[in-house]
């Protein structure tokens, strides 16, 4: 692939430089496979994540390597970051961002609680409405951004504050216990030790396919890469953005419910900026450009694993909590620099 690409620049249009390998099916496919693998930005992050897991696992086999810690790491720490990152990747690819998703996270279990406890709405319906509430928040973000033309950074900064206030004001800043009627459904959502991580993996698979193998994904990339060109081709750019805001809102609401069920508590201070910024970090480490047009959900998944391993690993190694942010920030930057520089080296090696 690298060779043909270079040749094309020099020999463009000359006879004999026909379309690559039409007659040679197997070889062509093999070369394409190798090229695709070599191009995967995920490969770098995979190596980083695997190395971190190995390091902490080998140095602290009894603690970091335990089953309990695996659950902590993958379900408690990584899963929320992964699931929110799916939405952020889609938004970043189409040129937007959602800062409010952590507060949709905070609000959605309260919506379920109020409906079930105060309004007698049946548990399952209350859960469905609280997920729909997340979709509605995404729609509002889309309306303000696409229809009213605000930059999404400002839109979601505003809606994020409002949602944060909604959670605090309506709960009088007090935690609530999960309504008993909903607990049975909670098993499906997030109560089990592995359920959050299983959800995360299923959602990653689904949205990876959506992004890489469906028209929606193609149009999302086109919108972020060249909005004018996408519109020229007849793509409803606004609809794509609305949709991705709504997907992100839905995922935020889902994570909110999961965490509430897992902890058996609805905390008005759950969510917030931290999981949102972690998931954007995971997305960026995983190869999502902040400029739009490129990004992968698999990369964000691996980025979230790497990030969570750092959080969990530092905790277990026992580095004092006060230094942790410094090390953490440094580690993020190093991971980013490595990723960016490796990508640059790979690009240089190709051309």
């Amino acid at each position: 692939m690298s060779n043909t690409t270079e040749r094309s620049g020099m020999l463009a249009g000359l006879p004999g430089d026909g379309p690559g390998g039409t007659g040679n099916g197997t070889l062509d496919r093999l070369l394409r496979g190798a090229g695709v693998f070599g191009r995967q930005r995920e490969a770098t992050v995979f190596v980083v994540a695997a190395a971190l897991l190995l390091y902490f696992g080998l140095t602290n086999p009894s603690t970091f390597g335990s089953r309990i810690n695996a659950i902590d790491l993958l379900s408690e720490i990584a899963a929320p970051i992964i699931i929110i990152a799916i939405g952020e990747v889609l938004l970043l690819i189409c040129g937007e961002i959602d800062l409010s998703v952590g507060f949709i996270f905070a609000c959605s279990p309260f919506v379920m609680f109020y409906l079930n406890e105060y309004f007698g709405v049946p548990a399952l319906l209350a859960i469905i409405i609280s997920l729909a509430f997340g979709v509605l928040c995404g729609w509002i973000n889309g309306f303000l951004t696409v229809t009213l033309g605000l930059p999404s950074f400002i839109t979601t900064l505003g809606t994020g504050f409002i949602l944060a206030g909604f959670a605090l004001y309506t709960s009088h800043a007090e935690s609530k216990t999960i309504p008993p009627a909903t607990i049975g459904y909670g098993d499906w959502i997030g109560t089990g030790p592995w359920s959050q991580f299983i959800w995360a993996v299923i959602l990653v698979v689904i949205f990876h396919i959506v992004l890489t193998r469906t028209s929606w994904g193609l149009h999302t990339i086109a919108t972020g890469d060249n909005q004018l060109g996408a519109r020229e081709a007849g793509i409803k750019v606004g609809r794509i953005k609305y949709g991705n805001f709504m997907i992100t809102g839905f995922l935020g609401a889902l994570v909110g419910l999961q965490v509430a069920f897992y902890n058996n508590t609805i905390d008005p201070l759950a969510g917030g900026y931290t999981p949102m910024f972690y998931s954007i970090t995971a997305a960026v480490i995983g190869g999502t450009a902040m400029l739009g047009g490129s990004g992968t959900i698999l990369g964000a998944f691996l980025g979230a694993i790497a990030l969570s391993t750092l959080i969990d690993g530092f905790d277990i190694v026992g580095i004092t909590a006060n230094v942790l942010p410094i090390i953490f920030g440094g580690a993020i930057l190093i991971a980013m620099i490595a990723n960016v520089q490796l990508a640059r080296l790979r690009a240089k090696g190709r051309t």
Partner: protein
Amino acid sequence: MTSQPPETPEAATPATAPATDVLRAEHMGKRFGAVTALVDVNLRLAKGEVLGLLGDNGAGKSTLLKILCGFQQQDSGTLMVNGEEVLLRSVDHARSLGIDAVYQDLALINQLSVYHNMFLNREELRWPLLNNRAMRKTAREHLDAMGVNIPSVDVEVARLSGGQRQAIAIARAVYSDAKILLLDEPLAAMGAKEVAIILDLIRDLKRRGDVSIIIIAHNYGQALEVCDRINLLQHGMITLDKKSKDTSVAELNDIVVAEYRRALQERQRT
């Protein structure tokens, strides 16, 4: 997109019918506030013809192109497509009549492969997934048939040269059944080899005979090379309409240089 209006008898009788105008603009005018971009433009395009639309910056070429592709509407004058008067309401409307504009830099999505670009917003599906195999195959066949040489349809468009990108944008428009192609500066900022790719492609399309083309260009030499006829647009009016073989780079140059001189003299007087 594929729905050609039924009122195109030319399609059935190409050779015997006299050269009919697929596009005819009469007394087109367009103002933007105090600025009159188009004063009175009369333009016609015959079936299978390649028309070169030349003119200086600010002569109104872009405005005319935007009106012809439905992006803007004229203030006065009429437009006939295949002999029928229409007011192009939108780009989509124009496209449904077979009119498609190809811009050099706006058309393609850099980070998508050639075949995804070819099928953008017309993807072939094996619901709910993309049928990449079918799109890859069709794209390759179509590009081969048009004589567009690229190493592989899997390549990201960003990796192609300017000429190849332009060729793909044109091929895409033709594939989507465009009968009237409006090419905006298809040769701008290109090397000789790149220019050759596009000129070849346009000649091929001319040979096919079912596509009519308007080329907006700066370079008189290149335009004369490939166009059947030349229209010169000055101050919102067509001031010259000649067959390519009846005019020359020198003549076109003289006209434009004369215009510069006049403008210069006017400046010096005031």
